[in-house]
């Protein structure tokens, strides 16, 4: 990782002139209090009135030559009577997965995707018809993420509550990978 940290001392000089003084090559591990103290100390050697200090962290992404791959395993578990019927029709463009069936077994989906800084899962809709013919409101009960150096396994656990509000039985799940790439 290549991170450059600098600090900027802001002060007011003669004739109320605002002055900014950059101090480069700050230790990225230094905490903000220590950096501010140094900025104040340096400014105290001048006739300028200290008004603030800013910390700037820059990450150099130009050195990245390859994007590591992440093996993503998405596993969804539901209580037995919901049982999903079909293998999900997953699309590589991260489009939502749509399930309209009433008898689906718990399934596991695996894919390889470009490693992102994080993956967040979005549950768009969660109404499903059980094999008993009743319509259930399905919610994600819990999510676990297990990580190794290049593998991330996400397990989603569902629970269901019977509802009479819905006439459409479908479950839509999508995941969202943020566009910001921080892998160096």
């Amino acid at each position, binding site marked *: 990782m290549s991170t450059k940290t600098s600090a900027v001392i802001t002060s007011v*000089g*003669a004739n109320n002139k605002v*002055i900014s*003084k950059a*101090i*480069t*090559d*700050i*230790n990225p*591990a*230094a905490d903000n209090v*220590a*950096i501010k*103290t*140094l900025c104040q*100390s*340096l*400014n*105290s*050697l*001048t*006739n*300028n009135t200290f008004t603030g200090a800013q910390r700037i962290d820059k990450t150099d992404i130009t050195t990245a030559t390859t994007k590591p791959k992440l093996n993503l395993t998405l596993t969804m578990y539901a209580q037995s009577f919901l049982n999903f019927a079909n293998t999900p029709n997953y699309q590589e463009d991260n489009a939502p997965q749509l399930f309209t069936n009433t008898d689906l077994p718990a399934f596991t989906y695996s894919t390889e995707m470009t490693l992102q800084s994080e993956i967040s899962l979005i549950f768009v809709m969660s109404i499903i018809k059980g094999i008993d013919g009743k319509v259930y409101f399905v919610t994600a009960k819990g999510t676990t993420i297990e990580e190794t150096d290049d593998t991330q396994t996400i397990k989603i656990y569902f629970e269901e509550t019977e509802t009479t509000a819905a006439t459409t039985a479908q479950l839509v799940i999508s995941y969202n990978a943020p566009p910001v790439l921080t892998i160096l």
Partner: protein
Amino acid sequence: MDTTKTTKQLKLVAGFTDGDDRTISLDNPRDSITAADISAMDSIAAGVLFGDKAGANFMRWKSAKTVESSVTYLDLTTGN
């Protein structure tokens, strides 16, 4: 009429463990700066300042000096 502008800077030289030096220049320094003022900042800079080459740790302030310079701007309108 020619104009003369005088500026003053404090130049602090930081020494790092890899033997490298780095100068920090501050405009408009106080007149009453003492060596003790500079030495007191040794502990404040430690752990915060890095060497700009190998990222070496700050060791101490090696020197401090004030530099005064004056620049004279010639009035070119009078010669025409």
